[in-house]
């Protein structure tokens, strides 16, 4: 994490918060995109379907915007992320309580061969999809295979370790290297 290139971002300062409360379209777009990615990552392990994930995200954003405009919930700009996470926890808890299906989502829930990135996905937009594709294609073949085995084919991780003659600790290291390389390339795609 330290030393890696950064994705384009805004600073969450008082001015950002004020623009958000005032309904500035660019700031709102950044906010929903930025936290939408984080919420998707979080919700994938908690909700079963893309529709549920999208519902939870929209409900979270609606509650956050309502709280912000009532000047309640967020005392300082630095607390914005924690507040969004907290609101999301409440939304998920209420979905659980209302009897929604809450089985963990499979990693490879995109359909085989007819696969489409979900509405929740960070790669839903065509432009981003191409950036992600370019960054993945630039990875060494072994790393692409590893990512495919883990997240596309959903292979058993212990079996992957046996196939690669590595233990689980080293599997994390391999994933770490692949992620760092992907991130470097992904950032380049943004800046080129």
């Amino acid at each position, binding site marked *: *994490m330290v030393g890696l290139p950064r*994705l384009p*971002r805004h600073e969450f300062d008082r001015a950002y918060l004020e623009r958000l409360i005032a309904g500035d379209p660019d700031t709102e777009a950044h906010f929903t995109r*930025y936290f939408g*990615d*984080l919420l*998707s*990552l*979080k919700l994938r*392990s908690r909700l*079963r*379907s893309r529709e549920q994930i999208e519902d939870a995200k929209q409900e979270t954003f609606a509650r956050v915007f309502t709280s912000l405009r009532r000047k309640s919930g967020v005392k300082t700009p*630095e*607390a914005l*992320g*924690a507040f*969004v996470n907290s609101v999301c926890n409440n939304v998920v808890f209420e979905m659980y309580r209302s009897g929604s299906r809450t*089985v*963990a*989502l*499979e990693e*490879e*829930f*995109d*359909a*085989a061969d007819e*696969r489409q*990135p*979900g509405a929740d996905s*960070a*790669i839903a937009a065509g432009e*981003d*999809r191409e950036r*992600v594709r370019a*960054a*993945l*294609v630039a990875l060494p*073949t072994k790393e*692409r*295979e590893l*990512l*495919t*085995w*883990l*997240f*596309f084919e*959903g*292979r*058993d991780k212990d*079996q992957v370790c046996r196939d690669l003659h590595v233990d689980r600790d080293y*599997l*994390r290291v391999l*994933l*770490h290297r*692949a*992620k760092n390389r*992907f*991130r470097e390339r*992904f*950032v380049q795609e943004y800046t080129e």
Partner: protein
Amino acid sequence: MDHLQAVNTLAIERYLLDEMPQEERESFEEHYFSCLECAEDARAASAMRDGAAAGLARTQAVPAADRGAVLPFRPPVRSWRSSVALPWAAAAMLAIGLGYQTVQGPLLSRHEADSVALMPSTLRPASRGQEAVVTAGPNGAVTLAVDLGGAQFESSIKYDFATADGKSIASGVATPPAAGAPLLLMVSGSVLKGSDTYVLTLHDGPGVLTPAPYRFRVKAP
């Protein structure tokens, strides 16, 4: 969890690999929602995983696990709604068509592949816990029509073939068929060796999909 802990313990990697207990997962989430560095890392990791899950990291058009081993077929959704007979006929036609496209390498020699008829052997719910006998096709390949009991599944289905003593011989992921339609799987004869009886297990999400695995024995044609 603080930033140093997140970095030193490869938190995002363990998070992606679903290796964190719930308490640590929640603690890490609290952290990455507030830490700009970790949030950026999490967003990149999320994009990478979503891209890989969508098949964008594949080095070949066909997943390695499916080449010459197990081929899942997904019948078209609309065809299955009006009758029981039609879906099975369509599934058989699809199996034949896809079989022709795919079995030339591992299953048939090129000059044998002008046409091939596949006869799926059905594994019905009633056969769970019992042993079905299926007939091998060309070069020992077996085509299975797995009756899912009419249930409809939203997520993908993981399938795993193992020998009777539990040794996994082939596995993969299939898109669930439409309600009432069977899951069609073709198993290469090359992997069906060394055992008389095989066990097919289907998983949906974290649990086993069916109350008992499907057991079958392969009979020579």
